[in-house]
């Protein structure tokens, strides 16, 4: 089970609301490589993972992604707090505002609502861990793209922190893949699902 810790993993303190920034950063809430997808990917993959160390990595990284989801939500909340419908409209967020007002609804920057299609769970050690390695890199690229478009240091600071965590998670999934491969049959490295093909 989970316990909620009443603190952010890293502080978010934004002085100036900015709907233009919110409009792109929302992709890390409900987009294809966002934190909601990340958390659900790892926390659902862990059940079919046969190795204890890797179950631990998926549990702990998945849990951290929930903390990142909360940080992104805090960034979006602070970026849109107190904005008038007029200011939302100027940033092109009127099409979001009409359905969700200032509520936080997980969508991609394109407006497409969050979809479980973003979450790969194949039930196969090699397939799932390679999915995870790619996912961490894709999230890192999204944060790089956000940093290319955002100037405010108050926003850049927590985004840079989140970007750094993608790199660390990539390293840990590299460890996980190595642990998994150490347990696999070396003659049948890539085609072997230890849960079925004994």
């Amino acid at each position, binding site marked *: *089970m989970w*316990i909620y810790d009443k603190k952010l993993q890293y502080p978010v303190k934004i002085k100036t609301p900015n709907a233009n920034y919110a409009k792109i950063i929302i992709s890390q809430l409900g987009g294809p490589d966002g934190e909601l997808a990340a958390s659900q990917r790892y926390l659902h993959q*862990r*059940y079919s993972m046969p190795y*204890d*160390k890797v*179950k*631990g990595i998926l*549990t*702990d990284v998945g849990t951290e992604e929930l903390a990142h989801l909360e940080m992104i939500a805090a960034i979006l909340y602070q970026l849109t707090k107190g904005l008038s419908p007029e200011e939302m409209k100027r940033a092109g967020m009127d099409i979001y505002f009409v359905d969700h007002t200032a509520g936080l609804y997980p969508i991609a920057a394109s407006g497409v609502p969050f979809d479980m299609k973003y979450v790969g769970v194949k039930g196969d050690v090699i397939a799932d861990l390679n999915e995870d390695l790619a996912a961490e890199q894709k999230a890192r690229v999204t944060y790089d793209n956000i940093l290319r478009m955002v100037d405010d240091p108050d926003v850049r600071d927590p985004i840079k922190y989140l970007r750094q965590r993608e790199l660390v998670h990539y390293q840990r999934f590299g460890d996980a893949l190595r642990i998994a491969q150490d347990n696999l049959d070396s003659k049948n490295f890539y085609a072997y699902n230890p849960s079925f093909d004994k």
Partner: protein
Amino acid sequence: MNTSMNNNMANGGAGSLLRRIQAEDFALYEVALYLDAYPTNKKALAFYEEHRARLAELKEEYRQKYGPLTIYDNVGSNEWQWVKGPWPWEREAN
């Protein structure tokens, strides 16, 4: 319930201690939900205090005897016991 209690007896001490932790945890969570809406209710606050202390004792006993329940309470500096199975979703853990 009977079946799961029997399995849990078969597991020995870890299983029965875990059952007591789950019961205390549930009692505490239930009163916490109530307190969210009635934060000054004296009776609920007293219930919370009593069960909070009992849960803390049981969790410490579990931690010392069987290992960590969260990543923040690994026991000893020789090994990261956190990754030792069974994990909670496995039958042997219940």
